[in-house]
């Protein structure tokens, strides 16, 4: 064994180097205040190790980035912890560098001959920010996508070359595959490598300046073991903090570790409205909001650029005690400013109802996409975004709001749901259900705003029929009406009524006959082989998927309202020329499925 060590030592001289390091003198003796550089080194190592393992899972493309992160987060054993440790140790790294810089400034340890030590530390801080910005995007979820897009778009503020810079950063005219490949290469290739080089450089410079200081006299002690012990304890503390942060949302379940939002949507009209930068940039963000839009370049580039310049010049400014006090004061002002602005931003957002609503919507979509990804069909090759785009539960309300809610409400009994801009057509919540039909066939309610109250049918034959013929029913007639309603509602084949439909099959059969001969509906409506089309909507397959697609597609078709149609627009009037229709077949299907409550549930 000894021989082996000898052999290696003869050829490499490494134990001499090691001994040199361990014995290198720490001026002033071992101190707790000297632990920062080592803690920074430690956090970076945690970054490198966890980053490597995350990399073994990561797939950088617009259809696979989020998906692979989802896989790590929710499928890989301990994957959530891996992500969380990587994420939080990055935040801790930034804090450590910040504290270290402040310490250097306050203790005047940036002046000659320590200028390089200081500058390298500042550069490490800047590259940590760069690592955070590039790493943030890689999850490709709503917030990271939107926030990064906003940041990269700032480049276009730079006169002349801004547009080109944007393309270089994004890898093309818009965000996509190449943005991810570039950011990944910058993150794990370039920035990490530069950071590692800076770290080594910093160590060497520090050793040199420390040795010089120790040689100049005063108390000094070797690094090993007293300072090493302190460093080890500090690193343990760092690790504990990182783990506490990583475990703050529990050790299992969907919310353990770092949240992963819904997948990014490249459609600009679905831009994530609650996007906010990471905490380290909140101060700058709020600062930029103090400026009117035309002057954005000032808070985004000029002021931060100037601040960084001042920090770099500190070794020169701080040659005299007065200059040193300027530096300390300057640092204090900047720090207080950043903290105050960050809190202001948080307070703003907390009080901002739109922001909170957008945030809640984001959480809902994240939750929903998790459900869909866990469905037996899983995530398709086209990416998880397709899951949301093809999900009636997600798209239905959006389509309803844009196309239907100018007139129709969609409100449940408690008044929850989607309120119309100007309610002037029936409330479509639970459309076609027994309960909806009971209201329609109630003499007191048919002319209420919930049904025909704000339409021209208020004065129509149907309202008159309900008012005249369904008034003052005796108990037996009431039961008959229930049967007729059940029969009509069964036509819809609603998922929510599957059980009742099966249980009431005999009543439904009776009700069908009553619709024809007892209540005389077929006098105006067609119902299966009875009655005629043309005077009122066909009741065959009433409120079924196919029926709803038809009536929304073209309510003025003779199968529905014909010439009697009130103001309902035709959303798919031209089955043969899809380009002319307002809603595509797919959108129509989503809307109808949503109205009928047909979507995947866990």
């Amino acid at each position, binding site marked *: 064994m000894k021989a082996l060590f000898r052999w290696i030592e003869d050829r490499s001289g490494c134990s001499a180097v090691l001994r040199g390091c361990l014995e290198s003198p720490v001026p002033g003796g071992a101190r707790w205040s000297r632990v920062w550089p080592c803690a920074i080194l430690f956090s970076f190592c945690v970054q490198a190790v966890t980053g490597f393992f995350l990399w073994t899972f990561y797939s950088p493309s*617009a*259809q696979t980035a989020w998906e692979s992160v989802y896989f790590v987060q929710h499928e890989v054993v301990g994957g959530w912890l891996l992500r969380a440790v990587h994420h939080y140790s990055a935040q801790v790294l930034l804090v450590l560098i910040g504290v270290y810089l402040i310490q250097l400034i306050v203790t005047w340890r940036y002046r000659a001959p320590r200028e390089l030590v200081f500058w390298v530390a500042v550069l490490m801080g800047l590259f940590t920010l760069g690592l955070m910005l590039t790493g943030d995007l890689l999850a490709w979820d709503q917030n990271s996508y*939107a926030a990064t*897009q*906003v940041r990269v*778009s*700032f480049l*276009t*503020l730079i006169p002349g070359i*801004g*547009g*080109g810079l944007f*393309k*270089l950063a*994004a*890898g*093309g*005219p*818009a965000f*996509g*595959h*190449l943005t991810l490949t570039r950011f990944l290469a910058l993150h794990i290739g370039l920035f990490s490598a530069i950071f590692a080089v800076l770290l080594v450089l910093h160590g060497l410079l520090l050793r040199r300046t420390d040795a010089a200081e120790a040689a100049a006299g005063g108390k000094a002690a070797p690094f090993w073991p007293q300072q090493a012990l302190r460093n080890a304890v500090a690193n343990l503390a760092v690790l504990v903090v990182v783990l506490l942060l990583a475990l703050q949302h529990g050790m299992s379940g969907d919310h353990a570790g770092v949240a992963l939002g819904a997948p990014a949507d*490249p*459609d*600009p*009209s*679905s*831009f994530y*409205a*609650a*996007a906010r930068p990471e905490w380290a940039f909140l101060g700058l963000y709020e600062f930029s*909001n103090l400026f*009117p*839009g*035309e002057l*954005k370049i000032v808070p985004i580039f000029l002021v931060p650029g100037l601040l960084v310049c001042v920090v770099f010049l500190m070794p020169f400014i701080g040659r005299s005690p007065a200059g040193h006090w300027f530096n300390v004061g300057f640092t204090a002002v900047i720090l207080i400013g950043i903290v105050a602005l960050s809190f202001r931003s948080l307070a703003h957002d907390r009080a*901002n109802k*739109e*922001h909170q*609503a*957008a945030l809640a919507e984001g959480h809902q979509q994240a939750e929903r996409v998790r459900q869909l990804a866990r469905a037996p069909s899983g995530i398709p090759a086209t990416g998880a975004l397709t899951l949301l785009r093809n999900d009636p539960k997600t798209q239905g309300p959006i389509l309803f709001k*844009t196309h239907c809610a*100018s007139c129709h409400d969609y409100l449940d009994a408690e008044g929850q749901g989607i309120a119309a*801009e*100007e309610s002037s057509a029936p409330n479509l919540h639970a459309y076609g259900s027994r309960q909806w039909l009971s209201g329609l066939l109630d003499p007191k309610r048919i002319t209420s705003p919930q049904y025909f109250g704000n339409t021209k049918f208020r004065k129509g034959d149907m309202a008159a029929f309900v008012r005249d013929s369904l008034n003052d029913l005796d108990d037996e007639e009431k039961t008959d009406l229930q049967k007729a309603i059940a029969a009509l509602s069964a036509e819809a084949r609603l998922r929510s009524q599957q059980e009742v439909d099966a249980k009431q099959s005999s009543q439904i059969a009776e009700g069908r006959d009553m619709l024809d001969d007892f209540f005389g509906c077929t006098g105006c409506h067609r119902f299966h082989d009875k009655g005629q089309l043309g005077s009122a909507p066909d009741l065959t397959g009433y409120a079924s998927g196919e029926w709803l697609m038809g009536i929304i597609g073209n309510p003025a078709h003779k199968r529905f309202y014909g010439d009697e149609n009130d103001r309902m*627009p035709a959303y798919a009037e031209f089955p043969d020329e899809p*380009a*002319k229709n*307002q809603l*595509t077949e797919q959108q129509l299907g989503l809307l109808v499925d949503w109205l009928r409550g047909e979507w995947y549930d866990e």
Partner: protein
Amino acid sequence: METPSPTPPQDNSAGPAAAEQRRGFLAQAISLVLGTVTLLVPAVVGIVSFLNPLRQHGQAGRFMRLTSLDVLPEDGTPRKFPVIADRTDAWNRFPNEPIGAVFLRRVKPDKVEALQVVCPHAGCSIQYEATDDGGKFFCPCHSASFDLSGKRLDETSPSPRDLDTLDVKVESDGEVLVKFQSFETGTAKKVVKA
């Protein structure tokens, strides 16, 4: 770092020493040039490809049919229409994807105005809000508001410019065509994304 180079002797006298110094200088110059060239070639090759995105251009604006006139409310209430087109992302082409949206508003019986939904501030999607005095547009991200023609309403708006208008053509058969374009966000001038 550079390879350690022998320091040339600091001797100014003529003769063999001077000749040696000259040769030493030549060796230094040549090794520097060679080193730089050999390193530069791969770097340049890489950088040229890295700059490729500069030659990539976004979707050129072209007139697209969005809707027909009778769909737009006559009282001038704006309606939002998604724009569906093919989208290219590097090596992929996605047919018929939503690539944006437009607010259309009837200003005269046969005249339509179109606004991009993308907020010029930072790219959020603006929303229409009905108000007592006829409605306005509102950005949920940093609360910029605009009147129906797209003018900024706030005293100091986060948005550097008014909403971006788009060219509209109304055909004789009532079809509404819009020249769909995207613009840089954050700039005071309206610059088409190239």
